[in-house]
């Protein structure tokens, strides 16, 4: 990397980093998140949002580039200088932004950008006057950028433990509503770890968490390979026992979790479970069969409304009285569920049939249309006597087993857990079945699959029906959870949330769905200030994942192996090229 090129890259990264911070400020996140203390009484989530983009810009500026098959890493000193420059540019840009706001009369900017409040300006200037703040921002930016760049050129041996420790500390700080409660329930003292005043980690706690995780990670990077090899070397029987023990431990933890975390967090977990179910259903359609369904809310609504109608829910009249709808059965919940699944699967077939021959993107829009149709129909006056119109339905069953109902958070958690386990088992068996392989083949190449005897009509319809059958369970449980249905719960955002869950975890990956739901539903539930920016986060996740890591956080094993094979192949090819003394000149000239 030539010096001037590195500097140009640094300036560009700095501009991007600064723009990101200004964006976060304008959209209101920095101010809203400034009330969430992470460590001590100074490090808040808002401050972190100001610092992190700058440090990241520095980190990414000096990331190694692969050119003509060779990895090029900037030498440490130049890298740090580039990081400093990047930080100066970012800090300067932020300072310029603050200065621009000061140019206008008080409150003028706020009339347009509602987030530019005095509080925000106070946060961004650290309560100082403008020139001092500009200096602090620039110098601070330089330090952060330099730090980021320095971290990147630190040898792998130290870098990995450092990064792991930073992430773990951040995770502990973000889980501040969950870990202290668990410690308390276990009769452990948590006051040294979490401050009772700010709610965040104490300085001591943060240092301890950082040190312990760094040590563990460092040990693992030294010894981890040996341990893994030893486990791999064990006889088959013992390995199986080990796996069973791991699964057993996970199951025990899942079973006692509600007792540990209390009812508020159990409720969040219940919601997460609902989205796991929906994600599993959508995963069959999108992940296994490769059909993008943007109207998944139709099945969610179908599940919710059919269970309500089959178990004797009531319509709310405009006067507030509850009367039975025009069609109503009084089945028990567990008898009704199979019927609901069949109804949803049938609706899946109905939606799937007309769009079978359409190409992927058309299919997405048509399913989106069906989702909107579902929403309009449940809201309409036309079907009011059946579905309750805008007032919705009430008195939905609470899935009783004997005298026990499942509406309260803790029991509901177990209900959802049982359904999730069932749906996961079904998905897992499907993925490895003849049908699953058929879907795989169809997703990769429809024509080739057709030629080898995979009828794409049958398999697409199967995917729609099975996805609907699983996805409707989410709606069913949702109805049980809240006990009354309002049509506003069934809009397009449900579909997009489910899609984000599947995409974040990795399309076609069952653990991915769980992780996706935990991150996208659980995290905003834990940190209330996230709630307002949930959708912004989903949008950003969809874009970022598709651009940076289309296989998702926890990729489907088969796909990961395919990708990995390709990389290995490429490496081997490059080595051969170098071995024969060929040089690959140019390196993609012209493409920028």
């Amino acid at each position: 990397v030539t010096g001037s090129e590195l500097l140009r890259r640094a300036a560009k990264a700095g501009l991007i980093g600064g723009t990101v911070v200004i964006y976060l400020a304008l959209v209101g996140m920095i101010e809203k998140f400034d009330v969430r203390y992470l460590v001590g009484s100074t490090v808040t989530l808002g401050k972190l949002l100001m610092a992190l983009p700058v440090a990241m810009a520095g980190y990414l500026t000096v990331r190694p580039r692969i050119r003509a098959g060779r990895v090029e890493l900037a030498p440490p000193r130049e890298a740090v200088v580039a990081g400093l420059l990047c930080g100066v540019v970012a800090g300067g840009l932020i300072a310029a932004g603050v200065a621009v706001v000061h140019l206008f009369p008080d409150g003028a900017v706020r009339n347009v950008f509602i987030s530019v409040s005095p509080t925000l300006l106070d946060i961004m200037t650290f309560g100082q006057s403008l020139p001092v703040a500009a200096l602090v921002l620039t110098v601070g930016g330089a330090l952060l950028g330099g730090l980021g760049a320095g971290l990147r050129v630190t040898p792998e041996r130290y870098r990995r433990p450092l990064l792991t420790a930073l992430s773990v500390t951040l995770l502990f700080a973000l889980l501040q509503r969950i870990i202290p409660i668990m410690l308390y329930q276990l009769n452990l003292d948590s006051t040294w770890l979490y401050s009772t005043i700010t709610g965040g980690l104490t300085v001591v706690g943060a240092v301890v968490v950082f040190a312990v995780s760094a040590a563990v990670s460092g040990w693992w990077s030294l010894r981890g390979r040996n341990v893994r090899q030893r486990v791999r070397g064990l006889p088959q029987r013992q390995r199986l026992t080990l796996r069973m023990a791991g699964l057993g431990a996970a199951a025990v933890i899942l079973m006692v979790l509600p007792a540990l975390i209390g009812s508020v967090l159990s409720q969040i977990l219940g919601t997460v479970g609902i989205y796991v179910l929906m994600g599993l259903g959508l995963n069959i359609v999108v992940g296994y069969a490769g059909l993008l369904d943007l109207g998944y809310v139709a099945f969610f609504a179908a599940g919710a409304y059919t269970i309500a109608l089959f178990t004797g829910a009531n319509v709310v009249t405009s006067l507030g009285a509850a009367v039975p709808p025009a069609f109503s059965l009084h089945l028990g919940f567990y008898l009704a569920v199979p019927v609901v699944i069949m109804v949803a699967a049938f609706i899946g077939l109905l939606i799937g049939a007309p769009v079978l021959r359409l190409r992927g993107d058309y299919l997405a829009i048509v399913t989106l249309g069906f989702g909107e149709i579902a929403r309009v129909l449940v809201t309409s006056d036309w079907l009011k006597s059946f579905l309750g119109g805008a007032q919705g339905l009430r008195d939905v069953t609470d899935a009783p087993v004997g005298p026990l109902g499942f509406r309260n958070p803790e029991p509901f958690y177990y209900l959802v857990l049982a359904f999730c386990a069932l749906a996961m088992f079904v998905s897992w068996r499907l993925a490895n079945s003849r049908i699953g392989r058929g879907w795989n083949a169809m997703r990769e190449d429809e024509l080739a699959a057709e030629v080898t005897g995979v009828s794409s009509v049958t398999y697409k319809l199967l995917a729609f029906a099975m996805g609907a059958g699983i996805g409707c369970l989410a709606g069913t449980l949702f109805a049980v959870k809240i006990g009354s249905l309002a049509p506003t719960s069934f809009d397009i955002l449900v579909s997009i949330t489910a899609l984000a869950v599947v995409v974040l975890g990795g399309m076609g990956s069952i653990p991915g769905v769980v992780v996706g739901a935990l991150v996208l539903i659980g995290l905003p539930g834990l940190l209330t200030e996230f709630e307002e920016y949930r959708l912004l986060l989903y949008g950003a996740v969809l874009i970022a994942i598709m651009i940076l890591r289309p296989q998702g956080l926890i990729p489907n094993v088969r796909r990961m192996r395919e990708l990995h094979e390709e990389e290995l192949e490429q490496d081997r090819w490059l080595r051969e090229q170098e071995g024969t003394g060929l040089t690959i000149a140019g390196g993609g000239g012209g493409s920028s």
Partner: protein
Amino acid sequence: MTQDTGKDLAEGPAASTRAVLAERVPLRRVILAALSVLIVVGVTYASWRTLTLPAAEGRLDGTTWRNLVVLGIAQGSIYALIALGYSLVYGILLMINFAHGEVFMAGAFTSFFVAAPLESSGFLDRNFVVSILLLMLVSMAASTLVAVLLERIAYRPLRNAPRLVPLITAVGASLFLQNTFRGFFGPQTRGYPSFNQLEGTWTILGIQVLRTQALVIVTAAVAMVALSLFVARTKTGRSMRAVAEDKEIAGLMGINVDRIIVLTFAIGGMLAGIAGVLFALVFGQVSAFMGFVPGIKAFTAAVLGGIGSIAGAAIGGLILGLLESVVPFLLLKGVHVPSPNQLKDVIAFAILVLVLVFRPGGILGTGEPEKEGMT
């Protein structure tokens, strides 16, 4: 399918006749034919019921119908302007820019912040033409900026990715833009200023037309004619058509493909910006979430007319606008469905599904949604 036929053949002569019959008259055809007969009968019956409704039960008179038609045309012109954005991008990249509705919203919402001070200073009512042009300019600039950024950040890195990937990105971008504008400018709906000059009606060819609607129709028509001339006559327009035909060959012929793609997004953005101001004038309000439904409708219009074609987008928009305003009353009033206007969106989406089932290429298309040049 093929292996089924083979099995049937092996079973004997009777089975083979059945197989031949099945091949001549495929099940799909039969279902489609039955479906179309059903639709025609249903539509005829329902319209007849509506038109022969006793006056006491709220039969609509001629003026109401005429108003609905004009409203439909005005609404349709806005759809057509937005639809062009989808169509142009689809023609070149074969990709549905799902976030185009948000591009439209960006223009309308941004222009509000110029319109509001103009109104409070009284400039708006004194200089009608200047203010309208200014608002259009601001709106076009904002929409174009968003469209170009969208292409650069979200779509360009994925140009050679599998088709679902950019579509998912586009869905994400749509959500992201909505909530960005919500964060920037606030979640509430803002009342768009109204022009004194646009209040009241004009009588054109004996039909009373709201002045706003007249403005909408004329502006949209001018914009669309300008666009067709641009694409048909200028050198850049020819490059656009060349890139739509074949990106690689166009590149070899010395056309800067990246530049043309950016330009396409920019033109789509400009038209969406114009549509944004018109929409705000008609409905008198803007919000961060105003783009979603018109966006989907406009996409429907583009598909209806034949995606990738400029004339198609115009025709599709007009037809969709008309159907949407007339059909709920025409079909549902007579069969006593309460508040037919609520089901407007269902009609629009049902039309989308039906078009894709019966004629996936749209009205001006060839019957298959395959790649076609820009026309």
